[in-house]
């Protein structure tokens, strides 16, 4: 038979066999038959060509070796064929070039994509740091033809010696290469169009587990095993099932694309689902098929990650010390071993409250759930289901988890055990949900967890353009509400309909109601979800430098706290779309929109006041609560800044109105309540000079640390001042009778029946220690922000009695405080006052006089000229 005829025969044979294998796969769905069948076919072709071109010319010192997937006898329909021509020495390598070239050329002509390499035995025994892939490929080497003794020397002597010698370096390099590969995929399996070979949780990951096991076993003088990792997991069906699933899907992708295609594109997802590839229940929806994919990919990914995590432990004493240090986190409920958490009592796995505490523990310390604990929880599913709370008890746990630094990791671990959906069934709508979108890269649930992670990582981020957002994060009063809004913001994407925001809001409202959040908190979370596209949309469609854009946004948001939360939610939502979605350009625009709106809140207070004759929608809603006393209520509100309505709930406004109505019989009305771990003092009384300074002085005298305050007055001269303060010495908390004395001292001093100076005397004596100033004091006037007042902005270091110092200085300069907005962020106090003197704006001379007084009081140096 001529060579050409032989080639034609071999090509026909390959084509016929390939068609047969494809037909069998399509009818049986067995990937095992397809990949081992193709291996046998290629084995035969390689042998025939070897016998035709090589055997007649070389009788010893040369072996034909299958590597990679071919070596493992797992050739997918369009996988490359990795071949090694192993020679005894360099001289022989030179002599066999022609026959080797002929074999490879013929294989290409047949239609096989061959990756050949010719190496001497000595070459194969060397470790090249830059070509770790070759040594790894030798782990799957399989003798095909030629000098069997030569191959045996490689497999039985040289390779084990190499593995022993370079065990550490090989493991490290393989780990690095794998981690780099995972990083390319954002270290998550949850891609909308995943790569089932190279992506995390793909077939390559399984091979990494195998290779690590082989290197460790053979490198430590142990037995050579073809598939130790597989045997290691043979007691569990999970990995086997995952491999079967991934292999069947990969076969289908190869046949479908007629090439080595490993990405499950959307069209392929539809087809795989419709044909029921690897599905035990036959045809399913593409969403359901992808859920199966993610379930199996997770099994593989977890196994690989666990092995990779063990690598540094064996190699690095520093890492070992770190893990040893982390074992100190162990307590009576949970133990920590090598960074994995175990339940101390197996029975705890049945108790949802123990399980929720376990995930709080993980969220706090950034630990991994041990496989053993995971299985215990899975096996105790019934008990967990029965005891899982869905009411306020769940919120108590969840709020703690959400604000802890490793919340996203804990939530992912919970979600993989279906515990998130157990507590919040509404989350099930987005479980592994693939939405076809050109921009989104991850499933909706992973996008959600990633968004939460983005916010937690802001604090430690190194990028300069993200740092202002990190600072903003530390200023939030109720971060748990923002995180809850993020957790639920896209749940509506799992429902039919085009308005996912509306759907999310419906689902979130049900969950929030069940969890029993206080009405004010529930409103905030719902507001954030309902508005989660508002700032993105404003940035895209409106001129963010246009004052009208800013004014409209500010009116929608209402308060600075909501603005902060929505800014951060917007940032996280964009960044969690894909790694490139948040550009410095977008972040800068968001920050500009934030600062513009925040400044608007501060500078527009005096400009927009309520008028009884012009009722806004908001005003109408409040008036509707007291229909019979509408005119009295509107009279009380007349002249108060719009900001007052925005920063108080309708219930609070009604309460203030009722307090104002009591003024005739009792000229000082007080209200003290606990809010978010702080105290809030509300005072409603007739305005008089120095009133604000007196209140700040009383609080200081009692050792209270004012963190926020606001002062408003209506056109009838009734003031509504609110102070948020921390009780530095826990006076009110530890001595309940003192509360009465505290209230009484406020009333007496405001009614001039007691002296503030004598109350302050002991405090001033106690606070003699000088404050070490780290924040430069800055003052700024704005005479244009308000039609009737001069705006004074004070930024300085917070210290005991600061507000008293400032407000006293202002009072001594005969200034009236029309509006005050007091804020403290960490060590920095940011106070804004709208001042008048004799009912007019301040003159330049008065401004200079105040500036001198304040800088003398607040700084140990002269003011900066900003």
């Amino acid at each position: 038979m001529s060579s050409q005829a032989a080639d034609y025969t071999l090509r026909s044979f390959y084509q016929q066999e390939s068609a047969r294998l494809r037909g069998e796969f399509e009818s049986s769905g067995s990937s095992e038959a397809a990949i081992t069948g193709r291996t046998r076919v290629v084995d035969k072709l390689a042998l025939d060509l070897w016998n035709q071109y090589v055997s007649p010319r070389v009788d010893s010192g040369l072996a034909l070796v299958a590597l990679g997937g071919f070596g493992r006898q797992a050739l997918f329909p369009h996988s490359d064929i990795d071949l090694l021509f192993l020679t005894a020495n360099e001289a022989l390598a030179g002599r066999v070039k022609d026959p080797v070239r002929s074999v490879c050329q013929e294989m290409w002509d047949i239609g096989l994509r061959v990756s050949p390499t010719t190496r001497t035995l000595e070459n194969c025994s060397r470790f090249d740091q830059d070509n770790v892939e070759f040594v790894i490929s030798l782990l799957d080497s399989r003798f095909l033809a030629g000098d069997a003794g030569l191959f045996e020397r490689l497999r039985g002597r040289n390779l084990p010696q190499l593995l022993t010698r370079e065990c550490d370096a090989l493991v490290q390099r393989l780990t690095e290469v794998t981690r780099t590969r995972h990083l390319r995929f954002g270290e998550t399996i949850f891609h909308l169009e995943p790569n089932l070979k190279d992506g995390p949780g793909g077939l390559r990951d399984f091979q990494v587990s195998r290779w690590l096991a082989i290197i460790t076993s053979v490198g430590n003088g142990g037995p050579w095993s073809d598939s130790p990792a597989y045997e290691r997991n043979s007691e569990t069906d999970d990995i086997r099932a995952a491999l079967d699933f991934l292999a069947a899907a990969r076969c289908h992708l190869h046949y479908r694309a007629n090439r080595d295609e490993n990405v499950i594109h959307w069209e392929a997802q539809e087809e795989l689902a419709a044909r029921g590839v690897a599905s035990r229940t036959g045809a399913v929806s593409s969403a359901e098929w992808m859920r199966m994919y993610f379930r199996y990919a997770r099994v593989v990914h977890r196994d690989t990650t666990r092995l990779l995590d063990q690598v540094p432990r064996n190699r690095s004493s520093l890492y070992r010390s770190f893990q040893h240090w982390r074992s100190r986190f162990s307590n009576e409920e949970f133990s920590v071993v090598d960074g994995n958490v175990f339940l101390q009592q197996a029975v705890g796995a049945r108790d949802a409250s123990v399980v929720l505490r376990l995930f709080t523990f993980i969220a706090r310390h950034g630990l991994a759930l041990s496989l053993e604990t995971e299985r215990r929880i899975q096996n105790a599913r019934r008990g967990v289901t029965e005891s899982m709370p869905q009411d306020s008890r769940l919120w108590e746990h969840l709020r703690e988890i959400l604000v802890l630094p490793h919340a996203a990791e804990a939530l992912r671990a919970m979600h993989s055990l279906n515990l998130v959906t157990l507590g919040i069934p509404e989350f099930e709508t987005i479980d592994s949900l693939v939405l076809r979108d050109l921009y989104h890269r991850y499933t909706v649930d992973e996008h959600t967890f990633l968004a939460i992670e983005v916010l937690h990582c802001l604090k430690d981020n190194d990028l300069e353009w993200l740092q202002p957002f990190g600072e903003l994060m530390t200023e939030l009063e109720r971060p748990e509400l923002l995180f809850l809004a993020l957790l639920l913001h896209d749940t509506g994407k799992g429902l039919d309909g085009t308005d996912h925001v509306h759907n999310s809001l419906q689902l979130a409202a049900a969950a929030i109601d069940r969890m029993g959040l206080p009405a004010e908190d529930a409103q905030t979370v719902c507001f954030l979800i309902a508005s989660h596209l508002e700032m993105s949309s404003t940035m895209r469609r409106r001129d963010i430098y246009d004052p009208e854009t800013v004014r409209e946004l500010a009116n929608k948001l209402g308060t600075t706290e909501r603005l902060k939360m929505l800014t951060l939610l917007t940032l996280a939502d964009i960044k969690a779309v894909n790694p490139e979605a948040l550009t410095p350009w977008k972040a800068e625009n968001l920050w500009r929109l934030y600062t513009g709106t925040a400044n608007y809140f501060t500078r527009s207070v005096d400009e927009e006041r309520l008028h009884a004759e012009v009722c806004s929608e908001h005003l109408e809603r409040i008036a509707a609560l007291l229909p019979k006393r509408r005119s009295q209520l509107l009279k009380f509100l007349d002249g108060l800044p719009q900001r007052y309505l925005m920063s108080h709930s309708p219930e609070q406004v009604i309460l203030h109105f009722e307090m104002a109505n009591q003024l005739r019989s009792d000229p000082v009305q007080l209200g003290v309540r606990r809010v978010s771990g702080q105290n809030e003092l509300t005072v409603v009384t007739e305005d008089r000079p120095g009133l604000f300074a007196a209140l700040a002085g009383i609080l200081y005298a009692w050792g209270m640390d004012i963190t926020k305050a606001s002062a408003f007055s209506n056109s009838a001269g009734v003031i509504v001042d609110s102070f948020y303060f921390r009780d530095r010495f826990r006076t009110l908390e530890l001595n309940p009778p003192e509360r009465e004395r505290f209230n009484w001292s406020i009333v007496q001093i405001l009614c001039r029946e007691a002296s503030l100076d004598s109350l302050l005397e002991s405090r001033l004596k106690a606070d003699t220690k000088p404050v070490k100033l780290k924040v430069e004091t800055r003052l700024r006037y704005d005479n244009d922000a308000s039609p009737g007042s001069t705006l004074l902005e004070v930024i300085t270091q917070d210290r005991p009695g600061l507000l008293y110092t400032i407000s006293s200085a202002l009072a001594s300069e005969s200034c009236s405080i029309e509006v005050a907005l007091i804020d403290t962020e960490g060590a920095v106090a940011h106070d804004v006052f709208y001042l008048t003197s004799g009912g007019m704006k301040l003159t330049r001379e008065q401004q200079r006089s105040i500036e001198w007084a304040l800088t003398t009081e607040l700084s140990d140096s002269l003011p900066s000229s900003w």
Partner: protein
Amino acid sequence: MTKLEAIIQPSRFEAVKDALLEIGVEGMTVTEVRGHGRQKGHTEFYRGREYTVDVLPKVKLETVLPDRLVDAAIQAITNAARSGKIGDGKIFLSRIDDAIRIRNDERGETAL
């Protein structure tokens, strides 16, 4: 063929894109850029800190058109991007010698 580069306000991009699609311009390259012309910039304050905003965010849109579409494209962009204020942006035109579609080597206007 003519290459059209337009620097516009980000807030006008969607309207401009829709207007171009309407007259049959389907392909374009869009870049987030910063810059200033006569608009210069301004100074802002936030928490007592001064921020000089000297380069402002803009969107750069590039497209290559058959000559017959150029006037309509200019009209579409100016209509959609004009607010009448300084900072609305600019359009630049330049001649293009040839275009090649990488997939199939088509050349000239058919490659657009």
